[in-house]
């Protein structure tokens, strides 16, 4: 199917353009998404860190937190943009692989049972 190929190309373009989603908020001085603050930001906003939040916030340590490599937080936008593109690529790769796997499990190409 021709159009599927075009859609994959569209996705690849989106991956390369991904840093826009990083740079635009920086440029317009927009902070975190509402309700997605870290503990420090919470301290500033309400004057304390809710105890339950403190306990649960560190529950999971993601391998690529916030689409940036660990230790790269202070490296500036070019590095972060690079990490963002790589993260997008890795994320898409895994997402596609998982769906393909689910697809092969759920949708059997069993010719006998298909019309």
């Amino acid at each position: 199917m021709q159009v599927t190929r075009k859609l994959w190309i569209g996705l690849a373009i989106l991956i390369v353009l991904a840093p826009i989603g990083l740079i635009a908020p920086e440029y317009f001085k927009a902070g975190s998404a509402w309700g997605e603050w870290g503990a420090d930001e919470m301290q500033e906003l309400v004057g304390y860190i809710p105890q339950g939040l403190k306990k649960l916030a560190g529950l999971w340590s993601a391998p690529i937190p916030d689409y940036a490599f660990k230790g790269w937080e202070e490296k500036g936008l070019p590095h972060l943009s690079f990490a963002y593109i790589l993260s997008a690529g890795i994320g898409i790769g895994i997402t596609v692989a998982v769906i393909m796997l689910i697809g092969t499990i759920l949708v059997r190409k069993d010719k006998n049972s298909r019309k």
Partner: protein
Amino acid sequence: MHIPDGYLGPTTCGFFYVVMLPIWAFASRIVKKTLDAKQVPLLAIGAAFSFMIMMFNVPIPGGTTGHAVGGVLVAILLGPWAACIAITVALVVQALLFGDGGITAVGANCFNMAFVLPFTGYYIYKAIGYNAPCDSTRRVIAAGIAGYCALNIAAGLTGFEFGIQPLLHKTANGQALYCPYGLNVALPVMLGEHLLVFGWVEAIVTALVVKYLLKQAPELFAEKGGYPCK
């Protein structure tokens, strides 16, 4: 709209996991029954598209950021049950790999973005685009309205889940245990920012891609599970 760990109490987290389990099970059954093997790549593209669109953070100058979900588009193309699976995979990868959305909140986040969003979007599209031919502008408009409404309903729901936390969990001295903002703040903020800004992103993205695909590949819409052209 990705609720992180620590913002929802155990009751809310548990509740939404319990609600989502039968939905995921049912979605798998429906997809098994209706999806063709040749549609699987399109489902993968849909999941990847949703993943990507969520990385495009849109700023409100001097304020917060937000993003579209892209889930209404997947629902229009492949049906809401398939969209539920696709968005769930995107959200789980985001939570596990990138810490975007908490693992305790996967149930709630999937309920908002992988269940309510594609279903409301799909049925709004279906209602407005009812019986419209493939080349009809009404379909494009329907897609836009569906995207706008569905994202806002999902955002309102997220605001509600944030907002009930202070009612459910408090320490003896009155401090919140989880999300400290009540319904009076969480609901209007989540709804407001999506009504004003992010909802339009979902609307425009959904409408433009539907317009493009209706022209380039109307056969995609005629597949099982989605909403066929007349």
